[in-house]
């Protein structure tokens, strides 16, 4: 960036511009975060929060099966959702980018992500409507005669996965499409020119070139999915809780803020780990 001046008066001016945003971030993000980290090392006794430093909360997490299961549930569901969403979204993004005539592509894309504009809560609720015992799916299947008794889809892990995949397929279609479209068309022409058919062009050229974009989208999916409370709460039932649900339990029913804080730190660590893996992978395969 071109700079205008380094003089003291200008530097003070610069700080003046930048300070409000920095102060806000520090005051309302950094400090609360540090405070929460600190609180994770305290404990709740009765109605008070005892400010004695200890690792009790973390030890409980690794000790208590129910809590640990929350993390494994989160990871299992998130990984399933990520893989499924990528596999389903890529072909759709491909079809819109390659097969749809250019002047309809924008419309097709907007249609593909239109349900984004329902409220997130309402969208999950809509899936509840669709999957419930006397909802559309069950009644259709009963009507056709494929099943004789309504399926229990709602309030299960499957429903949660469906709800998540629905959201992330839309998100990934958008990101993968953007990725595909900015590839120079000459790559495809060169590959064809040198004798490659459609499948070969895709496998040897297009797929490797879009892989970084896919990884970024997958990472985004992972982060958003693992930290989500709404979809599992509405669609998942009460049996296999995920970590965000357990955290909310600690806040609400049990009013155990220290425990909630500790579990949040665990969640953050899981995300950081995923980020580290992704960054390392992207670095190895630098284009």
């Amino acid at each position, binding site marked *: *960036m*071109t*700079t*205008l001046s380094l003089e003291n008066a*200008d*530097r003070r*001016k*610069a700080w*003046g*511009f*930048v300070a*409000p*945003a*920095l102060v*806000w*971030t520090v005051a*309302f*993000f*950094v400090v*609360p*975060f540090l*405070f*929460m980290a600190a*609180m994770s090392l305290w404990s709740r006794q009765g109605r008070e929060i005892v400010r004695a430093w200890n690792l009790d909360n973390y030890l409980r997490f690794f000790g208590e099966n129910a809590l640990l299961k929350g993390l494994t549930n989160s990871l299992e569901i998130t990984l399933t959702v990520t893989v499924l969403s990528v596999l389903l979204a890529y072909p*759709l993004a491909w*079809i819109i980018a390659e097969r749809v005539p250019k002047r309809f592509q924008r419309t097709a894309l907007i249609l*593909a992500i*239109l*349900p984004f*504009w*329902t*409220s*997130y*809560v*309402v*969208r999950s609720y*809509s899936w509840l*409507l669709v999957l*419930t015992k*006397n*909802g*559309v799916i069950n*009644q259709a299947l009963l009507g056709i005669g494929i099943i004789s008794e309504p399926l229990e889809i709602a309030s299960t892990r499957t429903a949660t996965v469906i709800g998540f995949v*629905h959201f992330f*397929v*839309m998100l990934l279609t958008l990101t993968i499409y953007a990725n595909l479209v900015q590839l120079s068309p000459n790559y495809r022409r060169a590959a064809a020119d040198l004798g490659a058919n*459609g499948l070969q062009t895709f496998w040897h050229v297009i797929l490797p070139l879009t892989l970084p974009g896919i990884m970024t989208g997958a990472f985004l999916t992972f*982060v958003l999915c*693992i*930290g989500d*409370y709404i979809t599992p709460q*509405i669609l998942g039932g009460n049996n296999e809780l995920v970590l965000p649900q357990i*955290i*909310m339990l600690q806040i609400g029913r049990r009013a155990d*803020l220290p425990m909630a*804080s500790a579990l*949040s730190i665990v*969640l953050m660590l899981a*995300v950081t780990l995923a*980020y580290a893996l992704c960054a390392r992978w992207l670095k190895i395969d630098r284009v």
Partner: protein
Amino acid sequence: MLRHRLSTLLAVIYAAALFGFIFLPVAVLVLFSFQDGRLPVPPFNGFSLQWYEAIFADRKLMAALLNSLIVATASSAVACLLGFMAAYGFARYRLPGSVLQRGLLIAPMTVSYLIIALGLLTVLNTLGIGLSLWTVGIGHVVINLPLCFAIIYSSMGDHHVNIERAARDLGASDWKVMLLVTAPMLMPSILASFFLSVTFSWDEFIIAFLLSRFNVTLPVEIWSLLRSGLNPKTNAIGSVVFLASIALLAILELTLFRKKNTP
């Protein structure tokens, strides 16, 4: 030729199936908002506007809708203003440690909203500060500030500098330059980040849920509706939000973005 026909057929089938999957819940939502009956599930008994009447009569719901609008626009405005000023400062002046500071401003984008909410909750709790729409607004600025900053910062190009220099050369003070020259030049990205922030804030649930008490935003109020099970009323408010968003999007598309496309 045949191979191409076959692959086109497959493509059409796949696209249709996926579009069906994508639209299924929304179609069900909107259809059963007109349900003449108590349950928003098949069979569809007939068209009725009773649920739309119900939601417009529901004072709490309408209040929540208004609250959402206020919180969204106010917090987005603040986030835009802070983001713009910060982007201006970093782009036009060389500050020590700017990389770290910019990283700090972007950091909240990488953290789950639940954690941001929890952090603020623990602090407010300990300090004994009450929860309200103000606390929700603060939280929303936290999540939208990185976005506004990133978008506006990345659009401040070197070619803008000369225009600002010319303005200064002609006698404008710093504030005037910023107000009358820089801001208008960057209006597309300022508006983009504003509308994006409004969209995120409007629909945001977890921060609004944890950081409010009596006055709530729309997503939180809808959540309470869900406590009462499957209810066409929820369908109605959901459809209203959906269709209003689409309408707004269509208007924006036809006015703002169309103008950008024509050279």
